[in-house]
């Protein structure tokens, strides 16, 4: 990892960094990656975390199954207050959120 990588990440994450901040970020990131890279060497049997079973016949199905939590797309009463939401807008006009033009 070098300073260019940090710049690229900061750009992707939409975070403005000064040159000094980039350098200290690079130092910290290197230290952390050095610590977590041990994970690369861990032997995990070749199967995905949530697969049903493997060739060996061993039942490795998790005790829970992972599923999406769907709900019907219907209007439900919410306790959001319109005024509190609009009050938060940093920039507003006539009760609408005002943003910079995009095009």
């Amino acid at each position: 990892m070098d300073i260019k990588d940090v710049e690229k990440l900061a750009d992707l994450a939409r975070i403005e960094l000064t040159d000094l901040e980039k350098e200290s970020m690079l130092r910290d990131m290197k230290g952390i990656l050095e610590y977590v890279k041990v994970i690369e060497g861990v032997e995990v049997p070749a199967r995905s975390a949530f697969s049903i079973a493997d060739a060996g016949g061993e039942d490795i199905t998790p005790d829970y199954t992972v599923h999406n939590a769907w709900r019907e797309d219907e209007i439900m009463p919410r306790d959001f207050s319109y005024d509190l939401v609009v009050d938060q807008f940093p920039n507003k006009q006539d009760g609408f959120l005002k943003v910079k033009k995009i095009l």
Partner: protein
Amino acid sequence: MIDLKNLTIEKAHNNLKDGKYTCRELAEEYLKAIEQKNPDINAYLEVYADVLEQADEADKKFKDDTATILTGIPFAIKDNILIKGHIASASSKILENYKASYDATVIKDLKKAGVVFLGRTNMDEFAMGSSTQTSAYGVTKNPIDTSRVPGGSSGGSAAALAANMALAALGTETCGSVREPAAFCGLVGLKPTYGAVSRHGIIAMGNSLDQVSPFGKDVRDTEIIFDLLSRYDREDSTSVPENLRKVEHKTNTKKIGVPWHLFKEGVDPEVEVNFKESLEKFKQAGYEIVDIELPYSKYSLAAYYIIMPAEVSTNLSRFDGIRYGYSAPGKDLLEVYNNSRGQGFGKEARRRILLGTYVLSHGYYDAYYNKAIKVREKIRQEILETFKKVDYILTPTVPITAFKLGEKMNDPVAMYLCDIFSAPANLAGVPSIALPSGISSEGLPLSIQFMAPHFKEDALFEVGKAWEEIREK
């Protein structure tokens, strides 16, 4: 004068019921304590203006006989739990002016019970830290030794309770953020089963790990709070339905597994001695201690520091200076984003967002994120397997005692290592409780922690209460 130091929830409840004092008088005592101590400790970022009105409402419940055990109990609430109409900043500049537009489910339940919210407490920014030093609003001091940190990230809640500036407190855990400050401040901290307590209205850090977690002065206090908050909530898609919560509850379980290989190094000698002494006390009380091996769990913290930043980078993308929170000017939309996020997020938040962006990026996803997910599943499986052989897993809560203010701030990895024993419970989703286990030669609290199988909080309360008896021997 009410003896706040020795007050527990049950004692206060009995006194309120017997009319020894009113909820208003109790709240006034705590407000006095806050006025006296908070300027130095900085546990509270804000004390609510309506505390006495809330107490009056609670008094009405006692008058019309609708009071329950938590009615009128003064609570400190971590700054990442939404209370409608109040600021919830997650101790970040980017949310300095954010006013919650709804109540978190846990707050709704506490309101129904008639608790009194004293104020919101300081924390590491977005709950990222182990010492409450990354807050944008200054550090919180440990009331036991004000030259030291209270732990974190829920350090403000821990300090408020330890300094008798509240009778109960809520924090949140992603990896040790309640157990570690509980250890540093001499309190009990419970990390519930993942999915037991609703996350609706909690400012998210790592969704697959976060849990609202109570602090108490003793085991019974955390049990009372947990019993109220633990329920299915349709507003939280990972909340576990009631029918899946029912587990067989065996009483008098006495087999404790100790994964010695996990703490061969890096543990303060005094912590280790205290841990061994604690084991000895359990043995004498008739508990069976067995060695266990958790080969994948030694990678817990490494897996955690991949999974959590990945979730952080995703979660914190919503803070962009557009709809709410801090917004910095810029010549175009992109500059508004970059400036708002660059100036609004503190150093640790930026660090974790970038780290998460890195481990999720093309070319590193498989090596880091995907691998960490697999290791996490292995950790979960080996812990579940272990619970077929033992009733509890016991380790020290933290490898060290409360450190000096300013320490570890320039060495992120050293800070992360504070949570090395916390990570397995969060990754596996099992409940864990931190219990005071003595005082070090420097007068600092020591702590041990139990883990139990999913939804066996009851077992943790049972062994915790037994420990409160055994400990004194």
